[in-house]
C-alpha cells in the first residue's frame, strides 16, 4: 500500500504542477486546448488524492504496521470503526484529508461555475492547483503518511484515546474541511482579478462556496464545543484556546463577507471590500494551518512534534503577499456602482456589522499573538486565555447582537423616520419590558440582564418581519403556514439569514446563562453521603471499576434527587455562613419532597499505552439548566471528590446547532425565482439600451 500511496502523491504533485503551469501559459500564449487540459488535470487530482487516501485507509484496515503513520495511530485491538478517525488523527493523515477535500470541492466548483466566468476560470484553476500543489508538495517531501519503519512492530501504538468517541467522526473533518473550503471563494475572486474581469460574475459562486464552507466550519466548531462540554469533562465548551481562535477568526471574516456580498449582489457596492474580506479569510485560514502544525503558540489541539511550522509560515506569507499585491494592483477597477445614500440604510448597517466582525477578529488575533510579542520584546512569557478574551471581545460581541436587530429593519438606500418608528417600536418595547421584568423578578447580574433585553429585541425584530409578511400574505387568502413558507421562500438568502440569527440568539442565551449564572460547589463524598446544591441532592450510591486491554476505568454511581429546599433550611444557612453554595449530608435518608430524577455515572479512564487519563462527566440536561458532575478524583480512602455545577441555559447552545444548519441551508438553497427575475432584468437592460 505504501508504494501505491506514495505514487498517488507523486501523481498529484505532477498533475497539479501541470494544471497550474498549463492554465497560466495557456492564457498567456493563447492555447485553448492547454487551458481545457489543465482543467481536466485539476479534476485528475481527485483521483490521486482519493487513491492516496484509499491506500492509507486500506493500510489501516490491514494493520500494515510497516507504515509509520499506521503504527503510530492504530493497533489491532482498536475498534475498526475508528479507522476513519485514525486516518486524520495525525499530522500527515490530516493533510491528506485536507487535500482530498480540497480536490473534490475545487473540481465541483470549477465544473459548475457559471459560463460567464469563462475568462477568469483558468486563473481560478491556477490558484486552486497552486494551493493543492503546496499540500501535495508538503505531503510528498515533509509529511509523507506512507513513510516506512525500518523494523516492523508487532502491534501499533493505538489511537489517541481522546479521539475514540463518535463525535470525532465529524468534528475534525468538518473543521478542517470548512477551513480549506475558504480557498474556493478566494480562488474565484482573485481569479477574476487576475483575468481583469471586474464584473460581478464571480459573486454568486463565491457567495455559495463561502457560505457552504462557513456553515461547515461553524458546525464543526459547534460540534467541538459540544464535544468538549459533554465528553472532555472539564466543565466548559469554549476555552479561547489558540486553535479554537484560529478557526473562529476566518469564520468571523466569512460571516462579514456573507453579509456584505449581499450589498454587492443587490446594489453593486462594496466591491473592493468583499475581495479584501476573502483575502483576509484565506490568509487567516493559512494562519490556522500554521499554528496547528508546529506554530509557536501552545494549544491543547496542536499536532505533537510537528516540524512543519516554517513551511506553513512561508506559505501563509506568500498567500498574504500574493493576495494583497493582486488586490492593490486591481483596486482602481473595483469601484462601487452607487454611492451610499444614507447613514441609516441597510448598506451602512452592513458596513458597521463588518467593522464589528473584523474588530472581534483583530482583538482575537492580538490576543493570540500577544504572548509572542511579549516573548520577543522583553523575554517574559505571558498567557492570554479566556479571562482576557471574555473581557476584550464580550462588549463587541454584544454590539454585534444589537446590530443583528437593527440592520435587518433598515431598508436599502435610505430609511425614513416614519418607517423607523413603525419598525422599531415593538422590538424596543419588548426589549425594555424584558429588562424590567427580569429586574422586578430580582435577577442579578446587570450585564446579563441587559444582554437578555438585547436578545429579546432582536428576536422580536425577526418575528415582527415574519408576522407582518405572513399576515399580509394571509390576507390574500393563503393559510398561515403556506403564507410563512412562501415568505421565506420568496427571499431565501434573507430569511435563511434570519434563521441563522435565531440560532445565534440561542447561542447567546446559552453563553450568558453559563457564564453569568453558573453555580458551583465541590465536595468529597463517601458512599451514602450526598452533596446538596440549589435544589439538587446528589447521592454517591456506589462505585465500580473495570479493566479492558486498552484502559482501566472507574466510575461512580450517582443518584440525583430534586429536593424541597424548605426541608434543608438549617444546613443551607450553615453552608452560607461558611461561604459555600453547597453542603454535604452524611445520612442517606430521604426527606419529604425528595424526588429521584436521574442516575448519573461519571467515570475516569486511564489508558496504559498512552499514560493518559480521561474524564467523563455526568450530565443531566433540561431546557432550563444542566446539572454537571465532574468526578475530580477517586481518593484512596474510598471517597470520590466531585465538582458539581449548575449551568443554566446550556441546553440552548446545542439546540442552536440544528437551527444554524437549517438556516444555512435555506440561505443557500437555489432560488428558483431567480431565473424569471433575471430574465426580466436582462430584458429591461436590453430595452434601456434600445
Amino acid at each position, binding site marked *: 500500500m505504501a508504494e501505491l500511496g506514495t505514487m498517488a502523491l507523486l501523481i498529484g504533485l505532477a498533475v497539479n504542477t501541470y494544471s497550474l503551469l498549463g492554465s497560466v501559459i495557456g492564457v498567456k500564449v493563447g492555447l485553448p486546448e492547454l487551458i481545457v487540459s489543465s482543467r481536466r488535470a485539476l479534476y485528475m487530482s481527485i483521483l490521486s488524492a482519493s487513491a492516496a487516501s484509499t491506500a492509507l485507509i486500506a493500510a489501516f484496515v490491514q494493520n500494515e504496521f510497516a507504515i509509520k503513520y499506521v503504527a503510530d495511530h492504530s493497533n489491532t485491538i482498536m475498534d475498526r470503526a475508528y479507522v476513519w478517525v485514525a486516518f486524520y488523527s495525525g499530522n500527515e493523515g490530516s493533510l491528506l484529508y485536507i487535500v482530498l477535500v480540497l480536490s473534490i470541492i475545487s473540481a465541483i466548483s470549477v465544473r459548475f461555475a457559471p459560463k460567464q466566468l469563462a475568462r477568469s476560470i483558468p486563473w481560478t484553476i491556477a490558484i486552486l492547483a497552486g494551493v493543492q500543489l503546496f499540500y501535495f508538495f508538503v505531503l510528498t517531501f515533509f509529511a509523507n503518511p506512507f513513510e516506512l519503519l525500518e523494523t516492523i512492530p508487532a502491534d501499533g501504538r493505538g489511537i489517541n484515546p481522546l479521539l475514540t468517541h463518535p463525535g470525532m467522526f465529524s468534528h475534525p473533518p468538518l473543521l478542517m474541511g470548512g477551513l480549506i473550503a475558504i480557498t474556493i471563494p478566494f480562488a474565484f475572486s482573485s481569479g477574476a482579478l487576475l483575468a481583469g474581469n471586474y464584473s460581478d460574475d464571480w459573486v454568486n459562486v463565491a457567495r455559495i462556496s463561502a457560505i457552504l464552507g462557513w456553515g461547515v466550519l461553524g458546525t464543526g466548531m459547534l460540534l467541538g464545543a459540544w464535544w468538549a462540554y459533554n465528553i472532555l469533562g472539564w466543565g466548559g465548551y469554549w476555552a479561547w484556546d489558540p486553535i479554537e481562535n484560529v478557526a473562529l477568526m476566518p469564520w468571523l471574516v466569512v460571516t462579514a463577507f456573507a453579509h456584505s456580498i449581499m450589498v454587492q449582489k443587490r446594489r453593486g457596492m462594496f466591491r473592493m471590500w468583499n475581495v479584501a474580506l476573502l483575502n483576509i479569510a484565506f490568509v487567516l485560514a493559512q494562519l490556522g494551518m500554521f499554528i496547528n502544525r508546529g506554530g509557536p503558540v501552545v*494549544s491543547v489541539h496542536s499536532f505533537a512534534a510537528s516540524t512543519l511550522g516554517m513551511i506553513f509560515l512561508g506559505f501563509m506569507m506568500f498567500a498574504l503577499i500574493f493576495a494583497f499585491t493582486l488586490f492593490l494592483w486591481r483596486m482602481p477597477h473595483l469601484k462601487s456602482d452607487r454611492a451610499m445614500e444614507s447613514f441609516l440604510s441597510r448598506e451602512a448597517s452592513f458596513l458597521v456589522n463588518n467593522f464589528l466582525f473584523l474588530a472581534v477578529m483583530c482583538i482575537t488575533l*492580538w490576543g493570540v499573538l*500577544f504572548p509572542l510579542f511579549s516573548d520577543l520584546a522583553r523575554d517574559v512569557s505571558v498567557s492570554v486565555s479566556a479571562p482576557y478574551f471574555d473581557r476584550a471581545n464580550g462588549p463587541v460581541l454584544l454590539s454585534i447582537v444589537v446590530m443583528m436587530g437593527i440592520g435587518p429593519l433598515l431598508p436599502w438606500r435610505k430609511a425614513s423616520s416614519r418607517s423607523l418608528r413603525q419598525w422599531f417600536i415593538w422590538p424596543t418595547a419588548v426589549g425594555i419590558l424584558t429588562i424590567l421584568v427580569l429586574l422586578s423578578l430580582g435577577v442579578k447580574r446587570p450585564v446579563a440582564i441587559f444582554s437578555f*433585553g438585547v436578545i429579546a429585541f432582536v428576536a422580536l425584530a425577526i418575528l415582527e418581519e415574519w408576522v407582518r409578511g405572513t399576515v399580509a400574505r394571509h390576507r390574500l387568502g393563503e393559510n398561515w403556514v403556506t403564507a410563512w413558507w412562501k415568505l421565506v421562500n420568496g427571499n431565501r438568502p434573507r430569511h435563511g439569514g434570519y434563521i441563522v440569527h435565531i440560532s445565534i440568539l440561542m447561542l447567546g442565551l446559552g453563553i450568558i446563562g453559563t457564564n453569568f449564572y453558573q453555580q458551583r460547589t465541590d465536595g468529597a463524598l463517601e458512599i451514602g453521603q450526598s452533596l446538596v446544591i440549589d435544589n439538587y441532592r446528589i447521592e454517591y450510591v456506589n462505585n465500580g471499576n473495570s479493566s479492558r486491554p486498552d484502559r482501566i476505568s472507574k466510575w461512580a454511581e450517582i443518584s440525583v434527587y430534586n429536593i424541597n429546599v424548605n426541608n434543608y433550611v438549617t444546613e443551607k444557612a450553615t453552608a452560607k455562613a461558611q461561604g459555600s453554595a453547597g453542603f454535604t449530608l452524611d445520612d442517606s435518608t430521604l426527606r419529604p419532597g425528595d424526588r429521584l430524577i436521574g442516575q448519573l455515572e461519571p467515570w475516569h479512564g486511564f489508558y496504559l499505552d498512552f499514560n493518559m487519563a480521561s474524564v467523563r462527566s455526568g450530565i443531566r440536561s433540561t431546557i432550563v439548566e444542566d446539572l454537571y458532575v465532574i468526578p475530580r478524583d477517586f481518593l484512596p480512602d474510598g471517597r470520590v471528590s466531585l465538582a458539581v455545577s449548575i449551568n443554566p441555559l446550556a441546553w440552548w447552545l446545542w439546540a442552536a446547532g440544528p437551527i444554524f444548519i437549517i438556516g444555512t441551508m435555506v440561505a443557500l438553497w437555489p432560488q428558483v425565482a431567480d431565473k424569471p427575475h433575471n430574465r426580466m432584468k436582462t430584458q429591461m437592460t436590453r430595452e434601456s439600451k434600445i
Partner: protein
Amino acid sequence: MIVDTGKYSPMATRLLSKLIGSHTLPNKNIVITSPILLFVVMIITFGCIREEDITLEQRMHQLTNQLMCPVCDAQTIDGSNAQISKDMRAKVQELLHEGKSNSEIKDYFILRYGEDILAAPTGIGFNLLAWIMPIFIVLGGISITFLALKNMRCSNTKAALTVTSNQQDLSKYLTQVDTDLGIYEDKNSQDHNPNNQSVDEIKS
C-alpha cells in the same frame, strides 16, 4: 454638505452631521433619542441591582479560572485534571482560608511560576498594551467606518443621481410588493424587502 447646523441643535447632532453630512440623518430626534434611550436602559439595568458579596467558594472558582496549569497546554487549573492543578487548587483554597486577598494569591503563584501562570496579562507596564490594543482597534475601526461611509457618500455621486433605469422600472412592482407585505413607506425606501416571487407573480 453641512447644511443644517442650526443654533439650537444639540451638540451630538452637530457633531454627527459634521462627520457624515446632515441630510444623511433622516430625523434628528431619532438619532439623539435612540442612543439616549439605550444609555438610560443600561443605567437602569446597572443601577437597580446591588450585587451580593461573593462567597469564598465563588472567589475560589474565580481564581482557579485565572491561573494556568503549568504543565498543560493552554488550560486553566480549573479545567485541568493534572496532579499539579489539583495541588494548586488546594493551595488556592488554603490561602483563601488564611484570609489572603485575590491579588495576594496571584502574586504568590507569580513568584513561584512566573508571569505566565496568569490566564490573562496584568494591566501593568508592557502588558497594558494587551488591554489597550482592543480599545484602539475599536476606536480605529469606528473612525474608519465613519470615513468610509462619508467617502462612499461623496464619491461618485454621479452614479447615485443616475439611478439606473432598471430601478425606476422596478419601483412600481416593488411598491406593490411592499403594499402586499403591509409595509407602507415613503417613496425613498421603496425597495425595502423586495420579494422576488411576488414580483414574478405580479409580472405574470
